[in-house]
């Protein structure tokens, strides 16, 4: 009788647990990361497979940073990276950018997944560290784009943007 009472309670409790909102899956982060601000070319980018995503980073013997645009079809206005997810199901992904360099001064760095903007951050005044910007929905391939200059200012040209590291996870 005693055991039955406990078992019933546990069963109800566990069933309730299963019905609660589940935490974000501990998926592997996708990121571009390096520690130098020296600009380099797309030929320096390497692709590394991780369990869930393929991510791109600059090869270890080259200097570079995440301000490299992998694609050249954005007329120089945007930095653009693509991450194949291997999934055709629309999924919400979170985005954070790691700032650690005083050259990141874009007051209104606007990040987008595809052509939908998901968030903006004042990189001129944001503290060094991981800055969670927002979330967006994408599927087969996550297209991360950030405007290459501070368009919200009356003087857009030449303001540094991008970040040292970009993290995406779901």
């Amino acid at each position: 009788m005693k055991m039955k009472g406990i078992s019933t309670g546990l069963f109800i409790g566990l069933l309730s647990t299963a019905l609660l909102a589940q935490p974000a899956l501990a998926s592997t982060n996708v990121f571009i990361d390096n520690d130098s601000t020296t600009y380099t070319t797309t030929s320096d980018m390497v692709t590394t497979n991780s369990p869930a995503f393929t991510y791109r980073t600059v090869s270890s013997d080259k200097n570079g940073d995440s301000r490299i645009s992998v694609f050249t079809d954005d007329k120089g206005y945007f930095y653009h990276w693509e991450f194949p997810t291997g999934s055709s199901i629309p999924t919400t992904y979170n985005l954070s950018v790691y700032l650690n360099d005083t050259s990141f001064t874009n007051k209104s760095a606007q990040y987008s997944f595809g052509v939908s903007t998901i968030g903006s951050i004042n990189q001129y005044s944001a503290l060094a560290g991981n800055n969670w910007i927002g979330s967006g929905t994408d599927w087969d391939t996550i297209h991360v784009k950030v405007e290459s200059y501070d368009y919200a200012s009356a003087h857009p040209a030449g303001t540094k943007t991008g970040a040292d590291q970009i993290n995406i996870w779901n």
Partner: protein
Amino acid sequence: MKKSLLSTGLLTAFMMSCVFVQASTPNQTTNSQTATLSPLQEKMLNAIDNYTSLEGTYHVMQKPINVDETVSFSIKEGPSAGSYAKHVDNRDGSIVEQTSDSNYVMSNNHKLNEFRKAKIDKSTFAKITTPRSFKNNKGEPVYVYRQDPAWATSVNEVAFPQTYAFWLNDPTTYSIVDHEQYLGRDATVIQGKMDPYIGQKHDATDYKIWVDSATGVLLKLVETNASGEVTNLIEVNSLKVDQPVDSSKFSVNAPAGEADKSMKN
């Protein structure tokens, strides 16, 4: 007896559920080093919850990045949220406008005679209920930003000053020195020492900030360097809170005669 055994089981299962529902992704979250935020920080981090509309003008000068602008803005929160901002460069008179109807955001650069328009992903609007500042399992600081449905991003430094709220994370670096009347509103006045990373970027060692006590809106920010020179300044010159605004300003219709530089698929 039966009831008490059932309760024990439920309690046990609930405690187990607490372990499983903690939001955690590799390298991103930890529950052991969450920053304790002050009431003023909470107000600044959620300023958009503290007004239904905001209109005003301010002057911003940031010497290290050659910014000297007069900005006027109009924001409406809640249903039919939207925003309008006009940035006038005080040196050459060039103008950039940003508008949003909460579905799209459009920037018009009149000097370059071009505009850009982007759809807004609304999954980013949810109010954040998890810690806003903590350290991840690498010991790196994490700052969680919330996005505004009115998408007044170009004037967030005044209307939604989350960035400056995070400057106040370390209470040993600043003190509340006064309460003043500023534009007829009670302002909390803070003096502090610049974070070294920001200080290097801003060419500043000290700052003084006036925050609207009721809403968390930034009213004034003065940053000075070691020589006492003002290197960065944000100064609100007019402010209307919770007054009717003209929503027709929030139109995101593409302007005639300007080149479309929007992102393409």
